[in-house]
């Protein structure tokens, strides 16, 4: 039995519940809070413990701490297959609403928790309200999930399209793939699937045999193959842990799944904008992912823009180029390292401030 008590300072709220189905209520004194941590291991469980501690210590904004704790519960529920964590996420959202009112962050969290608990109609109602109120990408994702699970495919497609338009990434493409599959568009479904990289249109016998001989109790799954089974030997994508266990598609920008591929064909990067001092510098960034050093040309133009009809062009530009180290603030100059952890802009040697260095 897992019992969690969540307390909020000004409004004494007691929440207790048992995963076995026993529900009880209790009242707590104003300064008490007890969090019984689940005895689980892994990054998701660690994240739950981290945000539980943040809530308990009040070291962070309580809204942020509760929100992050709720999402940590959702993630842990997906990974552990323990639906009780989804209930915890819902209760966490209720705490947020009790203290802050029906804020979107709480509604979104609650909606996703409801989807995980297959309370799709309630989730759809929340999603509709969120879309009408603000229409952020994850609001449409929630609406797509809630409607798709109820078989409202037209509504799901419309919501998913809005999600893709606003957030073209793994989360949206994965939903597109699932919708295409539901529509019978197997050719249009992005390759992937369970187990072991199967695609939606592949031989179900192979899938069944693989499922039987593999060990599905481990995380990640231990996939085994056999004679006549043409599974792939290695997964190169993260697989969802809920039906239909689809592999997350490649986003076309991350080449990590194919390190042998030629990457980073950067030829030109150009940024135009107002230039000021300090924080108002015109800043651009790039990544060199080659294995060998690369020679680049950095130009800072101003007067030339006037000939193209740009008014108010920078009269005397000066450009710099530096390498960012692990964190944002510690920076290192080219050639001569110099850390400036607390200053911006970073202090770079004048020799790297280039003005007419070549012809």
């Amino acid at each position, binding site marked *: 039995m897992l019992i969690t008590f969540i307390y909020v300072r000004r409004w004494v709220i007691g929440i207790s519940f048992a995963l076995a189905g026993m529900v009880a209520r209790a009242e707590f004194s104003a300064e008490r809070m007890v969090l019984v941590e689940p005895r689980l291991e892994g990054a998701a469980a660690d994240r739950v413990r981290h945000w539980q501690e943040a809530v308990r210590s009040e070291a962070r904004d309580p809204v942020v701490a509760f929100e992050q704790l709720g999402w940590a519960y959702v993630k842990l529920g997906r990974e552990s297959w323990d639906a009780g964590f989804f209930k915890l996420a819902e209760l966490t959202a209720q705490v947020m609403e009790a203290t802050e009112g029906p804020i979107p962050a709480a509604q979104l969290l609650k909606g996703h928790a409801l989807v995980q608990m297959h309370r799709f109609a309630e989730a759809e109602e929340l999603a509709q309200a969120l879309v009408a109120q603000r229409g952020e990408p994850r609001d449409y994702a929630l609406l797509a999930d809630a409607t798709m699970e109820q078989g409202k495919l037209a509504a799901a497609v419309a919501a998913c399209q809005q999600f893709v338009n606003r957030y073209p990434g793994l989360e949206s493409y994965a939903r597109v793939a699932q919708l295409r599959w539901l529509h019978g568009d197997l050719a249009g479904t992005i390759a992937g699937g369970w187990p072991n990289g199967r695609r939606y249109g592949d031989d179900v016998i192979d899938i069944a045999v693989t499922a039987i001989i593999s060990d599905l109790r481990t995380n990640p799954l231990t996939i085994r193959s056999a004679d006549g089974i043409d599974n792939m030997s290695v997964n190169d994508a993260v697989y969802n842990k809920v039906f239909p266990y689809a592999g997350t598609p490649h986003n076309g920008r991350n080449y990590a799944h194919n390190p042998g591929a030629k990457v980073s064909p*950067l*030829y*030109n*990067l*150009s*940024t*135009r*904008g*107002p*230039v000021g*001092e300090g924080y*108002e*510098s*015109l*800043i*651009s960034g*790039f*990544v*060199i992912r*080659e294995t*060998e*050093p*690369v*020679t*680049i*040309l*950095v*130009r*800072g*133009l*101003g*007067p*030339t*823009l006037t*000939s193209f009809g*740009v*008014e*108010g*062009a*920078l*009269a*005397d*530009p*000066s*450009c*710099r*180029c*530096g*390498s*960012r180290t692990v964190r944002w603030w510690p*920076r290192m100059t*080219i050639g001569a390292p110099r850390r400036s952890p607390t200053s911006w*802009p970073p202090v770079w040697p004048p020799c790297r*401030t*280039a*003005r*007419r*260095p*070549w*012809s």
Partner: protein
Amino acid sequence: MATGMAPMQDSEAALVVTLQPGVYTTLLNGVGGGTGIGLLDVFLVE
């Protein structure tokens, strides 16, 4: 190094560097605190 991409104006800035793989940031400022619309370019030099 002749790249054929030299700025058209003498007062404009340019820098040719050979960089190791990594993450880089470029900044454009006005000399002496000057302000205005600027264009920051990065080209790969073969």
